[in-house]
């Protein structure tokens, strides 16, 4: 068994209202370390065996089609043991 992880983030130039809200809430709760926060989402996809490059390419296509909105988001695909 292996785990393919797709991480989706808004493109850097795109406004992230959720991240902004988190950044504003942190100091209210006494956490003063953050300069800014951006929020994304993470998909964990279980597969039977270590994925081949072709399978990873297929995951990338799925990410482009369904998991991410390539107009405003970027994503990375990686394998986690």
């Amino acid at each position: 068994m292996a785990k393919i992880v797709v991480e989706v983030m808004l493109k850097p130039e795109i406004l992230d209202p959720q991240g902004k809200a988190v950044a504003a809430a942190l100091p209210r709760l006494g956490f003063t370390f953050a300069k800014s926060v951006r929020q994304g989402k993470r998909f964990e996809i279980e597969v039977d065996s270590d994925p081949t490059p072709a399978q990873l390419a297929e995951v990338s296509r799925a990410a482009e089609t369904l998991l991410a909105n390539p107009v405003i988001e970027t994503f990375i695909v990686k394998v986690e043991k």
Partner: protein
Amino acid sequence: MALDTVAIATTTPDQEQPFAALGLKPDEYQRIREILGRRPSSSELAMYSVMWSEHCSYKSSKVHLKQFGDKAPHSDALLVGIGENAGVVDVGQGYAVTFKIESHNHPSFVEPYQGAATGVGGIVRDILTMGARPIAVMDPLRFGPADAPDTRRVLPGIVAGIGGYGNCLGLPNIGGEIIFDETYAGNPLVNALCVGVMRHDQIKLAKASGAGNLVVLFGAQTGGDGIGGVSVLASETFGSTGPAKRPSVQVGDPFTEKVLIECSLEIFAEDLVVGIQDLGGAGLSCATSELASGGSGGMRVELDTVPLRDPSLSPEEILMSESQERMCAIVEPSKIARFLEICKKWDVTVNVIGEVTDGDRLIITWHGETIVDVPPRTVAHEGPVYNRPLAKPEYVDRVNAQVLDLPMPSTAAEVKAAVLKLISSPNMADKSWVTSQYDKYVQGNTIQSQPEDSGMIRIDESTHLGVAISTDANATWSYLNPYEGAKLALAEAARNIATAGAKPLAVTNCLNFGSPEDPGVMWQFAETVRGLADGCLEMGLPVTGGNVSFYNQTGDVAILPTPVIGVLGVIQDVRERTPMSFTDAGLDLYLIGDTKNDLAGSEWAYMHNQRGGQSPIADLQAEMRLIELLLEGQSIFAAAHDLSQGGLAVTLAEMVLHHDVGATITLTQEIAVALLSETPGRVVVAISPSDAEALATLASNHNVSVTQLGTTGGSSLTINDAVIPLDELRIAHTQTIPKLFG
């Protein structure tokens, strides 16, 4: 990239500049050089390119739009006319109402959710900028065929975006339209309307006067959103494979906008601003040049004081950024402390970025170096004007000459089948799957919304004064005859206000067309504007403002000419309004107006793939008599519902389904024509039998014909010998849209 300053521009006249990539034509670039007496700096070039784009400068439409001023009817109701962010209308009792409709078509195709959401945000800020509290929104939408894959992509996203942004703002969405037609495939139309209310003395204008007054930017920080959106995106035809260029889109934040609204209203209430402008298309380029141009002309801005979300932005990008939820105000120095205090209270970012000066130049600096030094009028108001060639397209005479060959139902079984088929077609089907995603009742002042003929909002809770708004377009009629099509859309919108008992007062419009570089499209546009201006003059309704969206085409194929006309009316007591449907059995139903054989451009013809024939000719005198009758007879009408797309068949179906009270109808005319024809100027009313004589008197006083149709009651819609049980009718009407998109 090294900073390009005015000083450098003066000494390097021959440096090549990317004007074509920014959408400027060679002669436009040449004119900028003549105005400045040198080459523009890269920041100046950025400003001119966005402000001289079709979207901002109206360069192709201006010569036609001036008819709205030339032919303006005299109106005591108009407080602020065309040219400001939105027109303002006097509705009595010291109240003024401002309303406007704008397109957000291209962004909504590229990114449906955010495109539609920021469309709502933009029009709401336009209304806020006039000093008004926004009180409701409406969204007329048009898509490709309901079963097309691209429609399934864009429709859910657009609807969710409108609901997501509008609902978060706490603004009720009180109406609009949803129409499907193949010409909108790849060119969905997302038009957004907002209405706001204020007291007469609260009207604000976009002008920067008084040397020494401060230029204040408040709201969201500036990021790299939608840079050059208007010049590149809204002013260019999409190739058949999709958008040729894909600049980053803007993402809206409705919670920031909500705070900005409340903050601005508090600032207005304390009378702290001299002038104000929202930042929409063309961002700071537009706000600074329009404010300066609206005042005496002089302004100095230190661009490096603009708060940035992304510190790597260049000055050119800051000038072009279309980051949402920003406003620019002109504030007297004595009032700035209080202004900053209110912004702090609302946690709104605010910076003084410059001041009004004595001169007539807009000067923008970047860390002390002058990067822009221009006469602001040349940027904002004296852009290029094109008298583009126009020619009647060859299709017009050809399609006008076509003779329709349509099935004409006559037997009971055929009539029943035709009615069921018509009301289940995507255009006529129940749209509550869409409108139930919008909050229609937030704020508690919504009197009526979809599927009523118009949206109605109470504006005073003690006197029950209210306003009603309807938006309408019949693009097929405009395709057959753009001059009449515009008049007919105006008449329909006005009628939709009057059926509820509101008196039409003023007009806004959103004119959606193909490429102005196509003489045929330009002819459609010119005819539309001529028709609308003539119609408004005849009906005594001033045009308060509007919006033009060109380049709605894929390859060579333009959308149908789609002038969406919004009419606003006033009702003295919303409790007296006439609803679209009846709750009681035993009422008499009457048709007001004559039915002719007007199947050309009808929904029935569209369903049978026929788009030929002649559009009806608008009879605005008859429309005005009908409106008078509706307003005068309001007290006797238990219900009144307009006839438009789908004719009498759809009007009756909608009436009986609304409260589940059936009707029995007897038609003496040829039944197919009686049910399916879309002759304008008609309304179905329900009255108590005891009011029959009063209705006859009204009809004869206003010279309008009235025909008894039948009576209300029962659990079916019975038309002559065709019996359609309400359950069957409801299933046909309500299943189509959820099946397609649910």
